[in-house]
């Protein structure tokens, strides 16, 4: 006889096995390992919550310490491989298969583990791509998530860093999986409920608050004049030209420079209220001066940012907040906003080739994608028009009609040389060689060249929308690649012709005075200035303190 409720009965037996380690839903920190050993089975798909920001670090360490004779061959399906404990799972043989999105600091370790055969890699995803697969073929059996507070009924308050939690819990709880949450504190009454208690099976009060990385904090003190020059070009040559109001920024210093000169240079150009009014963006501290100057109407966040919670709470007209007052972030929703509602993505990259393909996978590092490929792509399902979207679409074709679809502006800001004078422009991405070495079916590309609309360097803007052939694109890219070998390999005549057509624009073509490109132009020169702008509401982590 066919069995149609195997998953439910399996879940029931696991819950029974766990019952001796819990008091209702509450589990003590000491019993956590035993609990995990009771509810997890070899071969399970496990999602250990963690991305580029928040980490269920207590549960990660507990999982890494389980008896591997009882639990092994797990399939890890999670956003971030960031903690040492995540790597330990594979080093110890507790886990074998991996599907993930982002690795950041562990990029090198993952490459080594992969080469040594300790990780069987499914794929490197973007965030929402992996989330999507949670609902198709990578549904977790077990979700280990992090929240700020829980009550006895298992309701969770995630605080400002909600991030991936609702998505992970949704996929697990509604497919007979088991959800375990680590919380900083168990309380009688929550400020707000982010996850309803009937979707949560166990709650552990961890011995420390879950870790959050301040990934989106850029110290204005480190912004260079060259980045300011690039920022001026981007504002004048792209924001103003297309009238971009709905957008997403990357995390690099060039976009931090843009944020910091909106209230000075942008003001001077008369752009306030006309550009950069709505963001899909984490609470970047460098955006504080623009917000305080009245530039920004609304921001929806993927996650929070360390030190920004009070500021966000006090600026609820700008940010999405719960009725408790604090930020409500949601990575899935915000990525969706970035995909379908933003007219522009602008961000930095480490390496870009002659076709405009870019990658952060450099030799020996598997950095992952995070959300950038979604932000930095033109989504073909979009149907609502907007001026920037239509303008870009019409530029991209010779003879537009009402059938011509619009295009998202995807802008890559590239400093021609990176650390130690390594050229950022290359004939062939490092990731191609890596793909061969690791026998990947698909070479990792962060943003595909055919999605890129503009490349901005210290040398100017290349508008790829206006290029009519692969050769033109290559010369346009070479034309802004400065004195890298790729830049010096350009055809001078072709580059000058592109400049004449406005495909390439130098600072002087944009009417930008090089003397204006100074740090004096920044609305804030230091983290401390950001604190002052915030009226003392921004509380930067101590590692950023320099006063």
């Amino acid at each position: 006889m066919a069995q149609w409720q195997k998953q439910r009965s399996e879940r029931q037996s696991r819950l029974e096995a766990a019952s001796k380690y819990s008091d209702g839903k509450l589990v003590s920190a000491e019993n956590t390992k035993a609990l995990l050993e009771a509810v997890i089975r070899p071969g399970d798909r496990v999602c250990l919550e963690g991305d580029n920001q928040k980490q269920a670090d207590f549960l990660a360490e507990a999982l890494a310490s389980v008896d591997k004779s009882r639990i092994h061959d797990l399939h890890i399906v999670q956003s971030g491989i960031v903690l040492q404990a995540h790597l330990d799972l594979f080093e110890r043989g507790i886990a074998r298969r991996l599907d993930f999105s982002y690795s950041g600091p562990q990029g090198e370790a993952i490459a080594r583990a992969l080469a040594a055969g300790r990780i069987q890699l499914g794929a490197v995803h973007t965030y929402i791509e992996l989330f999507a697969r949670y609902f198709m073929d990578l549904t977790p059996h077990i979700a280990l998530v992090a929240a700020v507070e829980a009550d006895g009924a298992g309701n969770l308050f995630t605080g400002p860093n909600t991030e991936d939690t609702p998505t992970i819990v949704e996929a697990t709880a509604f497919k007979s999986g088991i959800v375990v949450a680590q919380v900083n504190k168990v309380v009688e009454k929550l400020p707000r409920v982010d996850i309803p208690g009937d979707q949560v099976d166990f709650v552990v009060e961890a011995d420390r608050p879950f870790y959050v990385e301040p990934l989106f904090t850029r110290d204005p003190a480190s912004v260079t004049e060259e980045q300011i020059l690039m920022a001026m070009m981007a504002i004048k040559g792209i924001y103003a030209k297309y009238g971009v109001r709905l957008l997403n920024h990357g995390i690099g210093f060039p976009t931090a420079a843009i944020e910091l000169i909106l209230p000075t240079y942008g003001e001077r150009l008369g752009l306030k209220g006309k550009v950069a009014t709505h963001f899909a963006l984490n609470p970047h501290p460098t955006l504080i001066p623009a917000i305080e100057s009245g530039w920004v109407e609304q921001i929806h966040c993927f996650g929070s940012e360390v030190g920004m919670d009070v500021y966000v709470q006090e600026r609820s007209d700008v940010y999405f907040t719960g009725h408790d007052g604090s930020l409500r972030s949601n990575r899935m929703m915000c990525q969706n906003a970035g995909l379908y509602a933003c007219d522009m993505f602008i961000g930095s990259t480490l390496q870009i080739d002659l076709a405009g393909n870019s990658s952060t996978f450099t030799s020996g590092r598997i950095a992952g994608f995070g959300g950038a490929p979604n932000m930095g792509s033109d989504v073909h399902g979009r149907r609502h028009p907007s001026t920037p979207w239509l303008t870009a679409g019409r530029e991209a074709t010779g003879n537009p009609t009402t059938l011509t679809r619009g295009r998202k502006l995807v802008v890559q800001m590239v400093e021609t040389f990176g650390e130690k004078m390594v050229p950022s422009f290359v004939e062939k991405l490092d990731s191609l060689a890596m793909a061969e070495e690791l026998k990947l079916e698909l070479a990792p590309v962060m943003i595909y060249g055919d999605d890129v609309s503009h490349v901005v360097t210290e040398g100017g803007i290349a508008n790829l929308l206006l290029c009519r052939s692969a050769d033109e694109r290559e010369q346009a890219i070479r034309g802004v690649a400065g004195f890298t070998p790729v830049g010096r390999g350009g055809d001078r005549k072709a580059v000058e012709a592109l400049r004449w057509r406005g495909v390439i624009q130098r600072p002087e073509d944009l009417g930008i005075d090089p003397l204006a490109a100074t740090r004096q132009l920044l609305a804030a020169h230091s983290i401390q200035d950001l604190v002052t702008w915030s009226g003392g509401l921004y509380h930067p982590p101590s590692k950023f303190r320099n006063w």
Partner: protein
Amino acid sequence: MEQFQVRGTATRRAPGSRRQAIIGVNASGNLEVLIERVLPDNECLVEVATAITGFRDLWEAVITEFFERSSPGGLRFSINDTGARPETVTLRLMQGLRIMEDEQ
């Protein structure tokens, strides 16, 4: 440390009446440029002193491009450098040229 000069010809006299100017600071990854209007209108010259050796070829490319891009006739640019990137050098040269455009 390395010193050399790059000469160029110019199609026009650099505009402005300023006799001399200085811009930038010789610091790590940075450079200072002293600009003097001391040459015939159809000549230009960049004299480089750099603490980092072995990049003469790159310097010549940067300076040649600058000459072609802006034709700074009559100007001598003297550089003290401590490892500035090519784009920084270009920015400083452009800034220097721009300052010389001021009327005095």
